[in-house]
């Protein structure tokens, strides 16, 4: 059994299973203003059914239709006045069966404040069963 790639399955190797949990979590960033140097946090949650299962997810930030595969996601939007705000999206298990999407928006200046554009971030989360 030294060539696992050749076998459809093999009792010598563990595998991973699809537990058919798929949820979509949306978080809306409102079109409100944010002061220079300030952060705002927006969250959304969803329930997955299996305790202890790791999650696999993709992220859509609505500047495009792309579904990003990333565990470290940044977005940056220009505001048209030489200013921009940026943000970070964090996806994590907040309890045994809840997945939380946290969007942190930050504005660094140079104006005293900037008005954000309303955006709805969607994260599709799927869980699978680990070998342990």
């Amino acid at each position, binding site marked *: 059994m030294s*060539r696992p790639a050749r076998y459809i*399955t093999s009792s010598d190797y563990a595998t991973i299973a699809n537990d058919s949990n798929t949820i979509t979590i949306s978080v809306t960033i409102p079109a409100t203003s944010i002061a220079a140097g300030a952060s705002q946090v927006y969250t959304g949650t969803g329930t997955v059914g299996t305790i202890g299962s790791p999650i696999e997810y*993709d992220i859509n930030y609505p*500047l495009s239709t792309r579904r990003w595969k990333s565990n470290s996601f*940044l977005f940056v*939007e220009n505001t048209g006045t030489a200013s921009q705000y940026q943000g970070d999206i964090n996806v994590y298990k907040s309890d045994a069966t809840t997945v939380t999407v946290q969007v942190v928006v930050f504005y660094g200046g140079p104006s005293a404040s900037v008005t954000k554009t309303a955006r709805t971030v969607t994260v599709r989360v799927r869980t699978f069963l680990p070998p*342990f």
Partner: protein
Amino acid sequence: MTDHRKFLLDSDYPMDKIIYMTSGSVSVPNTTSAFPGITIPHGLPFTPLAILQWSNTSDFAITNEYRDADYVSTVFTTFAGQYYSVYANATNIYIDKYNLSGATKTLYYRVFCFQPSDASETSVVPSTENQGSKFILNTDYNYMKLFYAGILTTVANTYTHNLGYVPRVQIWEQTGTTTSRNILGQEISIAAQSSGVHITDTQIVWLNPSTYDKIYYRIYVDE
């Protein structure tokens, strides 16, 4: 019989095989920032593709892969909480440790690995520990059917799968001699500056390839 997603097992596609597993626990004091924090010799004849699960409880009731709930604080530039990440080279698996939660934490970790698609097919891979006696299929689940495992490069940055839906995909990056799951994606209003790996119902694309040498991907028939 055309929808392979509905099959528990499908002889058209292999079940993916985990070629290495390990687990353990360590105490991580507050203000720890250790890169790497844990070194695990893997003994494999190639650099594996590793996935980390971690928890602060032995039952893994809350299972994280990277950051925990508290990592991103309300102040964007100030990070708190914990994060642990895994990477590997030809000799070892490494787990980075980062704890700014304000308290000592117990890290329970589980690591499991896949064989990269460019590893020699004749590589001598030891059996995963004890699986021969534990291998039981459960009809409650679909076993993830590996559609294709491959590599994206800065030149060949697209693979067309044509499944017609967005499948489950696992990805790793390789930089130098190490492989890691820590992959940055960024969507920027100056479109040409957006970068990262994205998936569509027909393709997996490494947009504006940079930062890494290559991307390993494993696409599953499962949706």
